[in-house]
C-alpha cells in the first residue's frame, strides 16, 4: 500500500544486490571487530591453532547450512537436519561394524539421507503438508531410528582404516581435508545459486509460487529436489563427522538445526522465502563460531553461551527488519 503510493519515486533505493553486499560487508566487519577485540582479551585467540579449530568447528556444519539456505530460499525449512546428520553417522557406522568397507557404508548412509529427504519432499509436495510440520515429524522419527539402530549406545569406530579417517582428521599441505571439502561445497553452490537455471527456479518459487507456476515452472518438483538436497548435504556432513570423531553417538546433533537456521537467517535468508545467499549464511555461522570460541577463551560459563547466541540472532533479525522497512519506504 505504502510502497505502491510512493513507489514511482523510490527507484533510487539501494538494489538488493547492493543491500546484500551491504549485509555481508557488515557481517565481515562485525566478525573482524570481534577478532580484534578478542586478540587483546586473550593471548590464545590469535593463534593458528585456534583459528584452525574454529574453522574446523564450523566447516562441517557449514555444509548443512548450504542446504538449509537453499531450502529457506524456496520457502521451506528443515528441522530434521540434526537428526539426519546423526542418522547418516550411525547407519554408516553400523554397516561398517557389520563388515562393510567404510566407503560403501558411507555412500549408503548418504543415500539413505537422500531417501529421508525424498519422503519429506513427498509429504510436502504430494500430500500437501508444510515443511515445518513435516520436518518436525521427520526430526523425531529419524532420531528414533538412530536410537533403534544403535540400541541407544554409542558406536566405537576406532577400527576405521586410516585412509578413511584422513577425511576428517588429515590434511593436505597443512590444510585439513574437511576445510577443503567445505570450501568446495560453498564455492560450488554459491556459483550455482547465482548462475544456474535450476537454482534460479528456487528463487522464483520462493518469491511467488503462484507466479512461478504461471510462468511454467514446476514448483512442486523444485521444492521436492531442494528438500532432497538439504537432507543429502546433512548426510554428507554426518559421514564426515564419523570420520573425524571415529565414533557415532545416537544423540549427536541434537539442537544442531536451530544453530543452522540461525546462521542462515543472520546471513540474510528470509523465512518467507525468496531471499538468501550462501556467502551470507557462511558468515552467519562463522560469526556464531567466533562468538562461541571467544566465550570459551574468556572462561564464560557454558550455560551463558546459548543465551548469548539467541540474543545475537534476535539482534540480527531486528536489524534486518529495520533495513527492510527502510527499503520499503
Amino acid at each position: 500500500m505504502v510502497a505502491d503510493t510512493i513507489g514511482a519515486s523510490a527507484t533510487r533505493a539501494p538494489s538488493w544486490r547492493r543491500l546484500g553486499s551491504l549485509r555481508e560487508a557488515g557481517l565481515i566487519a562485525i566478525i573482524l571487530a570481534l577478532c580484534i577485540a578478542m586478540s587483546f582479551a586473550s593471548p590464545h585467540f590469535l593463534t593458528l591453532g585456534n583459528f584452525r579449530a574454529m574453522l574446523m568447528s564450523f566447516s562441517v556444519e557449514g555444509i548443512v547450512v548450504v542446504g538449509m539456505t537453499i531450502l529457506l530460499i524456496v520457502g521451506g525449512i528443515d528441522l530434521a537436519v540434526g537428526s539426519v546428520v546423526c542418522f547418516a553417522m550411525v547407519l554408516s557406522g553400523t554397516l561398517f561394524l557389520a563388515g562393510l568397507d567404510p566407503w560403501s557404508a558411507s555412500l549408503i548412509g548418504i543415500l539413505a539421507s537422500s531417501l529421508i529427504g525424498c519422503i519429506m519432499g513427498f509429504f510436502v509436495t504430494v500430500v500437501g503438508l508444510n515443511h515445518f510440520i513435516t520436518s518436525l515429524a521427520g526430526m523425531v522419527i529419524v532420531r528414533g531410528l538412530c536410537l533403534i539402530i544403535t540400541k541407544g549406545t554409542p558406536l566405537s569406530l576406532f577400527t576405521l582404516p586410516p585412509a578413511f579417517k584422513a577425511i576428517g582428521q588429515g590434511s593436505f599441505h597443512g590444510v585439513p581435508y574437511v576445510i577443503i571439502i567445505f570450501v568446495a561445497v560453498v564455492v560450488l553452490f554459491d556459483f550455482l545459486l547465482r548462475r544456474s537455471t535450476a537454482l534460479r527456479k528456487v528463487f522464483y518459487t520462493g518469491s511467488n509460487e503462484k507466479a512461478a507456476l504461471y510462468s511454467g515452472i514446476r514448483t512442486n518438483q523444485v521444492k521436492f529436489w531442494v528438500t532432497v538436497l538439504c537432507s543429502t548435504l546433512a548426510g554428507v556432513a554426518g559421514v564426515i563427522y564419523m570420520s573425524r570423531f571415529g565414533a557415532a553417538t545416537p544423540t549427536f546433533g541434537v539442537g544442531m538445526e536451530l544453530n543452522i537456521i540461525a546462521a542462515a537467517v543472520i546471513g540474510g535468508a528470509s523465512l518467507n522465502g525468496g531471499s538468501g545467499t550462501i556467502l551470507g549464511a557462511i558468515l552467519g555461522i562463522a560469526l556464531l563460531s567466533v562468538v562461541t570460541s571467544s566465550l570459551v577463551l574468556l572462561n564464560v560459563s557454558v550455560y551463558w553461551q546459548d543465551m548469548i547466541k539467541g540474543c545475537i540472532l534476535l539482534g540480527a533479525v531486528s536489524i534486518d527488519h529495520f533495513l527492510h522497512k527502510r527499503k520499503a519506504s
Partner: protein
Amino acid sequence: MSEPVLSIRNVTKHFGAVKALTNVSFGLERGEVHAICGENGAGKSTLMNIIAGVLQPDEGEILVDGEAVKIASPSVAQSLGLGLVHQEIALCPDATVAENIFMAATSRQRSFLMNYRKLEREAQKVMNRLAPIDVRRKVADLSISSQQLVEIAKALTLDCRVLIFDEPTAALTEAETRILFDIIRDLKANGISIIYISHRMAEIFSLCDRVTILRDGRYVCTENIAGVTPDDIVRRMVGREITQLYPSKQRDDEVSGETILSVRSLGDRDRFHDISIELNKGEILGIGGLIGSGRTEIAEGICSLRATTDGEVRLHGQVQTIKTYTDAVKAGIVYLSEDRKGSGVFLDLSIAQNISVLNLKALTGHMGLIDAAGEARLARDFAQRLNIRMGNIDTPVSSLSGGNQQKVAIAKQLAVQPKVILMDEPTRGIDVGAKSEIHLLLRDLARSGIGIIVISSELPELLGLCDRVLVIREGTIAGELSADEMSEEAVIRLASGVTSKEQTRLATDHAA
C-alpha cells in the same frame, strides 16, 4: 457555508528521502461525495492512510468539525467517525462474514462473551443491503467481488460521519456497482460525507459532487463536477495533454484473413462450454462479460492452466497438443494474469530476473548456467521498448509503481516471442498515463503480427481498444460485436442477458 466535516491543512509526509505529500490541503463538506483523482504515486493512498490513522503526517494538521485532532491509530480514526474501505481486501479469511463485519465493533464492546446469534442477525441485515451473501460462510470461500462487498458492509457498520472508498469497484460487477452507488447516494442523503477514489471517470461523474486532483504529491485543484469534463480532470492529473485516450484502431488495409489462433468448441464441463474463437492477424480481440461469467477460466483453458475436456486449439491452422502451461508457452501462447501481485510478478526479485523467467531455457548456456550478459541485455531491451521507469535492471520490482510493474509483467511474456498473448485485465488499477502507454503497446504488438486477446471489465477500454468483442455469459459466448456494433449498451445487454432494449437503456442510464 458551514464548517467542513474534515479538513486537511498543509499536510506533508516523507518516506525517507522521498516526499509522498507536499503541503496538501482540502476540505470535505457535510453530505458531499468528494472524488480524489491522481495517477498512481500521486499520493492518494498516503493521504487516505493519514486520515484513517494508518500513517502519521510529518507536518500539517487535520481538523474534524473545526477542531484539530491527532489521529494516532485506526482505532482513533474510528472513534472520530472516519472509516476507510481498503483498496486491498483486508479481511480475516478463516473467520465468517459476520465475524468480519463486526470485527471493529467487537473490539469496542464491553461484554466478555460474544452473542453469536445477535451478531449474525445484525450482520445479515447489513449484508442484505448489498447482496444476499450468507454471513455464516467463511470469507475464504467467497469470490473476490463478494469479499469486496463484505469489506464495504464492514465499513457501513462503523457509524461513520466520513467514509472513504478506495477503488471500491475494481473487483465488482456492473450490477454490484449499481447497488453500491445506490448505497452511497443513500449515505449522502443521511448527511454522511464520502471520499471516493477511482480511476474510472464515468463513476466519478455519475456519483460525485466535487473533485480534488493531486499530482506528484501536491494539491492541484478542487472543482465542482458540474463545471469540468473528464478531459479536464485527466489533463490536470497528468499535467500534460492526452489528446487521444486510445490508440487508433485497425485500419482497413491492415485487416487480413490470416487466422493465428482458432479455438473450437472448447469446454471443461464445469465453468465453460462450446467456446469457439477465431483470432486474426493484426487485430485485438476483446472478451467482455461479468466477473464470474467464466472469462478468466476460458483464457486459462486455452493455455492449459486449467484442464479442458472438449474441443481443440489450433495455432496457424495446426492442432496443438498442449497439456501443460509449459507446453503452451513452448507453442507460443502466453497468459498474463489479472492478479498482478498474486501471480504476475516476483516482487522481491529484480526486474531482470522477472523479465527472464519464461525465457530461462533460451538464456541457458552449456552446463545449465544462465547467460548473465544475455539476461541483462534482454532486460535492458524490454525496459527501453516498454519505457519502464526504473533505477536499473537490478532493482526489485516492488520498488516500481503499479503501471511499471505491469509493464514488467508484460515484458516477461514478450521475452519468449509469443504468437498469442491472452491478457486478463491488463490495465487494472494503474494510472492513466501508464494505461495509455500499455494500450499503444498492445496496438503495436498487434500490428507486428502477434495475436492479442484482452479480457476487461472496463467497458471503455474494451470498446476503445479492441477491434472486435466477444461477450461471455454463464460460461459461453453470448454474442460477438464487430467494430460498428460495439457500444456499452450492446455489451451490457449481452453480458446480463437482458433482451429488451428498454430495460437495457434503463440499466445503462442508471449506471452512467
